[in-house]
């Protein structure tokens, strides 16, 4: 059946008509096969133009439309809407761009007209082989999953926990609060960190729309945007949270002691433990990897000591599968360990900033007292900026928050131990944003001695008797303690965890956003959003902002009672042609192609496909088709421009 093509040529006021001979285009179009209607208008995109186009489509029973006008980037959607309003599928329209790419870039009128004819010819040839495409929609689950209950994960969960929503908040530790719960003061205003954190934690614990799962981890992720099935393993805590009042009476009877990671391994804990006083949820957990009972011994000491009968060894790990529409990943960060900075490796009393944060914390290993290994007050503490940072040998980036953090630590040291002489060894200051510079200027009054040095990673450090001698900035500093401001790095478990999610990771090991500037909370994996330091170093304010953005993005697409609208121009595999070579699978940036083990062919998931066509061009069998950019369509265009 032959098509009935309408060609609509636009003068665009003088913009096109002054350079391109549009009546000549019209003459050309009229001579083409299957073209039944050709019209010139001074401005097709105007209201009058659109009405006239709509009438022409209906009156002439057009089956295809070519609009020979401006760039499709300008008005493709405008004219697609006209087709739709005339009852024609919007994908049966093709534009020939004769304004931006012809009239505005060509001086010679004859040449411009010739080029415009070529582009018009190509559009006519293409439109003949275009196919109607329908927008697909799918049902979706409206619950959410947030992974990580630090400040970012909690902020995302609280934003997501709107009316009629359920949010699963999964935390691998037995407690919530992430890294921020380890801090007592927050830079740059030195506000009380627990005061800002605790109301959030309290809300998370008591919000009935948030299902908090501590001591839990993700063990499997299936499905995709709109319909994820996630398996969560909750390790048995062996302590009944309902019965336990968090008195701590069970800790000291436990015969096992191991390093307490929460305190940077500077203190010890038992197998039944709370990492620090005041954990939430307020109950200890038994760490089965170190508990004697789970190594075959019949120790019952904690059970015997509990006056509330809260300890239950029979509890088993539980697996639960949940169905959610979207996932927010907020798996946080670690700081590079001081041992990894080679010039300080192996020297005792060298701490990273997180460890020192714990030293000065009233809930830390020394309950906030700054003492040397032999129990005395340190005479000299040296803070070293940029250790392990801004250097090709380590991490090339600047974490952006450690200068302010180091100033904070020095300031708190001065308050707690006024007699201690403090050095800050720095190479450059990075103090962007509100209040940071003022914070630095205020802390100069602390009488800290600033020593400028080229590169922290070239400082010579040796231990002589009880002193660490640092050669930096032309000085020899004899310090009792050294604190290294090491970079914020991706969580040590991120790579292993990512095997479940298959997200893009950047060259520094952080999760990469779909676009770092214009969609910082989205990822290439539709329906998976990122928040906080798992996507790069951030301060608390930036983390919370990204978390709330991630939640907002998820809320805006997953709406109860509404279906998810899918990309139209996706790719499709022809099962008869596919040889099952797998070439396309690894190429897809969106993990949209999988292998159908039953049919032994590749299968494109239309929910994830964005229609780039990389797989189409890669398929050695020509088995994959991009619905709106088929080979046939592209070939027609090529023939058209060259005819």
């Amino acid at each position, binding site marked *: 059946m032959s098509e009935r093509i309408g060609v609509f040529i636009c003068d665009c006021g003088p913009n096109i008509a002054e350079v391109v001979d549009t009546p000549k285009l019209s003459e050309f179009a009229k001579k083409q096969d299957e073209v039944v209607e050709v019209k010139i208008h001074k401005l097709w995109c105007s209201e009058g133009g659109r009405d006239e186009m709509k009438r022409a489509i209906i009156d002439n029973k057009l089956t295809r439309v070519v609009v020979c006008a401006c760039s499709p980037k300008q008005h493709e959607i405008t004219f697609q809407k006209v087709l739709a309003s005339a009852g024609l599928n919007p994908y049966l329209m093709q534009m020939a761009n004769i304004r931006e790419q012809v009239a505005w870039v060509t001086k010679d009128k004859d040449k411009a007209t010739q080029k415009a004819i070529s582009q018009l010819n190509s559009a006519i040839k293409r439109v003949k082989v275009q196919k109607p495409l329908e927008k697909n929609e799918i049902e979706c689950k409206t619950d959410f999953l947030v992974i990580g209950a630090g400040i970012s994960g909690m902020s995302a969960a609280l934003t997501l926990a709107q009316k009629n929503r359920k949010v699963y908040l999964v935390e691998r530790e037995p407690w919530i609060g992430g890294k921020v719960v380890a801090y007592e003061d927050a830079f740059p205003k030195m506000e009380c960190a627990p005061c800002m954190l605790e109301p959030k934690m309290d809300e998370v614990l008591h919000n009935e729309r948030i299902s908090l799962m501590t001591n839990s981890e993700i063990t499997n992720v299936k499905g995709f945007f709109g319909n994820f099935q996630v398996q969560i393993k909750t390790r048995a805590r062996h302590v009944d949270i309902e019965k336990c009042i968090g008195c701590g009476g069970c800790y000291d009877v436990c015969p096992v002691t191991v390093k307490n990671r929460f305190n940077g391994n500077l203190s010890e804990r038992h197998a039944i433990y709370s990492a620090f006083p005041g954990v939430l949820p307020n109950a200890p957990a038994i760490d089965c990897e170190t508990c004697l009972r789970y190594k075959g011994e019949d120790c019952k000491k904690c059970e015997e000591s509990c006056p509330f009968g809260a300890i239950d060894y029979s509890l088993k790990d539980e697996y639960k599968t949940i169905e959610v529409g979207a996932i927010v990943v907020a798996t946080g960060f670690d700081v590079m360990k001081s041992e990894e900075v080679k010039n300080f490796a192996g020297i005792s009393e060298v701490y990273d900033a997180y460890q020192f944060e714990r030293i000065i914390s009233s809930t830390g290993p020394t309950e906030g007292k700054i003492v040397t290994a032999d129990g005395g007050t340190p005479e000299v503490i040296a803070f070293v900026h940029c250790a392990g940072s801004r250097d090709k040998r380590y991490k090339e980036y600047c974490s952006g928050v450690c200068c302010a953090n180091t100033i904070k630590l020095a300031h708190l040291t001065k308050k707690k131990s006024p007699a201690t002489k403090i050095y800050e060894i720095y190479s450059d200051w990075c103090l962007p944003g509100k209040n940071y510079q003022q914070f630095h200027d205020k802390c100069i009054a602390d009488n800290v001695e600033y020593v400028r040095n080229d590169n922290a990673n070239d400082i010579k450090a040796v231990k002589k008797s009880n002193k660490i001698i640092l050669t930096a900035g032309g000085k020899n500093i004899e310090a009792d303690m050294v604190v290294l401001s090491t970079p914020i790095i991706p969580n040590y478990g991120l790579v292993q965890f990512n095997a479940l999610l298959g997200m893009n990771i950047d060259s520094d090991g952080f999760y990469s956003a779909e676009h770092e500037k214009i969609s910082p909370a989205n990822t290439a994996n539709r329906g998976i959003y990122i928040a906080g330091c798992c996507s790069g170093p951030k301060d608390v304010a930036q983390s919370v902002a990204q978390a709330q953005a991630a939640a907002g993005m998820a809320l805006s697409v997953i709406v109860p009672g509404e279906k998810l609208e899918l990309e139209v121009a996706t790719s499709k595999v022809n099962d008869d042609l596919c040889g099952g070579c797998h070439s396309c699978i690894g190429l897809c940036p969106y993990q949209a192609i999988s292998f159908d083990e039953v049919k032994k062919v590749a299968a494109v998931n239309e929910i994830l496909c964005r229609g780039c066509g990389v797989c189409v*061009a890669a398929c050695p069998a020509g088995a994959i088709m991009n619905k709106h950019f088929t080979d046939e369509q592209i070939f027609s265009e090529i023939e058209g421009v060259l005819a």
Partner: protein
Amino acid sequence: MIDNFEPRIVGFLCNWCSYAGADQAGNQHKEVPPNLKIVRVMCSGRVDPQHVVKAFQSGADGVMVLGCHPGDCHYKEGNYKALRRMKLLEKLLHELGIEKDRFKLDWVSASEGDKFSRVTIEMVEKVKKLGPLTIRYNKNNEGGERHE
């Protein structure tokens, strides 16, 4: 060089950067040689070597594939795939007797109207020097045929 020879160049432009860069050249009223005829694709990674060969077969004297700059691809990394593919294609074109300067892969961003103008002018000049492509595929002869 043949006097008054006007080469026909086909440009495959990715929708997000280079096609927008071509529009930007228009917005800035830069010169773009009318020899260039444009085919829009969503991503330079969609360009199949067959498309390039087809263009030469159908009468193009030169072919350009323009995509987003490395690292800027709208689809993350389609342009890297185009890069790998086109490197191999260059070798094939050489085997077919098509001169190196008749094919160009380059990166033009949406803001680079001036670069779009420059690379297209350069392309036309180079192909003008080479003259018309004399090797064409003949439908009746699988091996192809050399003719004027």
